[in-house]
């Protein structure tokens, strides 16, 4: 398999073309934010925090999976920026036991209120099974993440927004890595119209197949809430220093422990190995390739490390475990 000589996108990635040096068109077209750009965002971010701090019951709602990125982000918001946090965890039924311990421990360390929302496993099993075997989402969505991950993240984003609106929380934070979301959207006001516009991509396919999950998504009444009350989305890792190994080292000092029952691209979810396995089998590229490529371009990871993460075979024991749980067969 041929890979871009600069990032880790493989020759099987949709739309990829290589130049004479073996560099892909994604690397050539992607603008990587420089120090000045990041500094500009840090300033904007700090001004925003000064505007909201202490004025509401919670300053920020954190989409908190218990994984390394959201834990690190939450710690920065609490420790460096002194924010009062509501940490929302969406328990999809596959959170590693160790990750759950991390959620409790790190929420305490950060002085955060932990709110864990766990739909009945019957409902989650139904939608994960559909996401695993059917074509739920548009192709562009699946360039960036697996179908199963997209399903879960769709719930998380919606629940975070819904809860922020219910509790009048001005900021909604995510631990997106620099490869997951562009710096340009790192501080962005949410809005009912924009939400409605993008419902076609994730919410609608989920609810068309599993109406009983509608409780977890924005309702028509939610979408009528005046735009001024909608929170500002923030994903600070886009402009903060990001080094995965350093982050893990740092978190361990705080008592966060790395789960041993998740695959190398996740530090909280025991479903991820199956999600990656199915995606690779169907599309012939790793669902984390896009993210890893972005992290490498940002200078936050060595290409060699990214290559390992996106070429390593999944642990079949974990794949079969998850497949049994959602009742699908693996050939």
């Amino acid at each position: 398999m041929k890979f871009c000589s600069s990032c880790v996108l493989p020759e099987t990635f949709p739309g990829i073309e290589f130049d004479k040096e073996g560099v892909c068109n994604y690397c050539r077209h992607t603008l990587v934010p420089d120090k000045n750009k990041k500094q500009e965002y840090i300033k904007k971010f700090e001004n925003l925090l000064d505007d909201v701090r202490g004025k509401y019951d919670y300053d920020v709602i954190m989409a908190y999976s218990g994984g390394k990125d959201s834990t690190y982000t939450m710690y920065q918001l609490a420790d460096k920026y002194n924010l009062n946090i509501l940490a929302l965890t969406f328990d999809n039924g596959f959170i590693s036991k160790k990750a759950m311990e991390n959620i409790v421990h790190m929420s305490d360390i950060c002085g955060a209120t932990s709110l864990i929302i766990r739909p009945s496993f019957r409902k989650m099993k139904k939608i994960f099974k559909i996401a695993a075997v059917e074509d739920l989402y548009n192709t562009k969505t699946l360039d960036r993440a697996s179908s199963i991950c997209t399903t879960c993240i769709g719930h998380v984003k919606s629940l975070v927004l819904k809860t922020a609106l219910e509790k009048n929380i001005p900021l909604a934070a995510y631990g997106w890595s620099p490869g997951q979301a562009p710096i340009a959207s790192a501080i962005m006001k949410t809005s009912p119209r924009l939400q409605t516009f993008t419902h076609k991509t994730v919410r609608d396919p989920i609810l068309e197949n599993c109406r009983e999950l509608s409780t977890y998504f924005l309702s028509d009444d939610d979408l009528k809430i005046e735009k001024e009350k909608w929170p500002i989305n923030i994903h600070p890792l886009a402009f903060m220093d990001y080094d995965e190994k350093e982050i893990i080292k740092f978190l361990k000092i705080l008592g966060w422990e790395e789960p041993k029952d998740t695959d190398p691209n996740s530090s909280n979810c025991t479903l991820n190995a199956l999600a990656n396995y199915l995606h690779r089998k169907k599309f012939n590229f790793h669902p984390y390739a896009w993210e890893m490529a972005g992290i490498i371009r940002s200078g936050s990871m060595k290409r060699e490390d990214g290559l390992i993460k996106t070429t390593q075979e999944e642990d079949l024991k974990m794949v079969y475990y998850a497949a049994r749980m959602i009742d699908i067969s693996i050939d």
Partner: protein
Amino acid sequence: METVQEVITNFIKENFIMGRSEINLAPDQSLLESGIIDSTGVLELVMFIEEKYSVTIDDEELIPENLDGINNIVNFLKNKGIN
């Protein structure tokens, strides 16, 4: 000088379609329904238009009729005085 249609078309080709030869980008095509952009792509598109043409897109304007398709975007910008 590039027309608005050319600018938007090139942006979509260079950022979302890349080398996908199977995608035929038609001006009246829905970008979401044809799988050319996803929800992150919508944000990127909105930010590009705002920056490129120094306009602010209000919440009320964030509707498919204005943004989901090249013709829709061109007409939307035309109504904002950008030709």
